């Protein structure tokens, strides 16, 4: 590269700017709508939503039942909604059963409760290995499960998206729903981590 010092935007940035201005000029897209979409995914939709769902399920056994029976319908109780075309399936961890979510096809992910997926979720190593060596993948994430723990791997599609309902950590008995939600990480809801008493970093 001879022009590393230049102040011009990068090639993809220029192409996207050109595309956007062309589409705006033709009246096909409203820049304000783009701003609103970006704001939604950067600030409004994310793992915090899923954490609220999980915390509610931990403190409310009836909600837990509804969530496992029909995830898409149950999350509307907290003000969240699927896009309408896909089912949200919630899979519950237990002492001898651990669930892990992947999309070997591409990048399907439960947007309303987790937001947009991290890069590793869309990466070739995760997608290829989660289904043939889930224990090995989980060890790389620092989760070494006992041999007698069954691992169930859920392969997503555009129509079927999965959320893991992790186990409530021991020692959290006295905590409020809000405090519990603070413990629940994105990775715990994908299944690559467990929930601990350490406050989640998001």
């Amino acid at each position, binding site marked *: 590269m001879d022009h590393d010092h230049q102040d011009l*935007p*990068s090639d*993809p*940035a220029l192409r*996207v*700017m050109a*595309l*956007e201005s062309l*589409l705006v000029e033709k009246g*096909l*897209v*409203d820049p304000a*709508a*783009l*701003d609103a*979409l*970006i704001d939604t*995914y*950067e600030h409004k939709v*994310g793992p915090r939503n899923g954490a609220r769902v999980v915390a509610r399920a931990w403190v409310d056994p009836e909600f837990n039942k509804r969530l496992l029976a029909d995830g898409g319908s149950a999350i509307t109780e907290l003000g969240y909604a699927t896009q309408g075309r896909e089912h949200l399936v919630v899979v519950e961890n237990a002492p001898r059963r651990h669930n892990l979510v*992947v999309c*070997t*096809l*591409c990048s399907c992910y439960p947007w309303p409760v987790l*937001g*947009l997926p*991290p*890069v*590793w979720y869309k*990466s*070739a*190593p*995760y*997608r*290829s*290995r*989660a*289904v*043939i060596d889930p224990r090995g*993948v989980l060890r*790389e*994430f620092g989760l070494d499960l006992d041999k007698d723990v069954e691992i169930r791997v859920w*392969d997503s599609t*555009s129509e079927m998206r999965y959320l893991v309902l992790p186990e409530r950590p021991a020692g959290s008995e006295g905590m409020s729903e809000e405090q519990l939600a603070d413990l629940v990480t994105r990775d715990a809801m994908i299944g690559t981590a467990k929930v601990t008493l350490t406050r989640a*970093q998001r």
Partner: protein
Amino acid sequence: MNGVHDMGGMHGMGPVVREAEEPVFHEPWEARVYALNRALAALGKWNIDASRHSI
């Protein structure tokens, strides 16, 4: 077919690399093009299969 889809069970892709404190979008243009794609999908000019095929 060898492509970016249907990767389940493939070998030789290496370890899973994670990024700490990963932002939703890494560059402003990623956010713009993502939003463009979502907004234009409303025009109904392509379906999800066509979308995936084009990746």
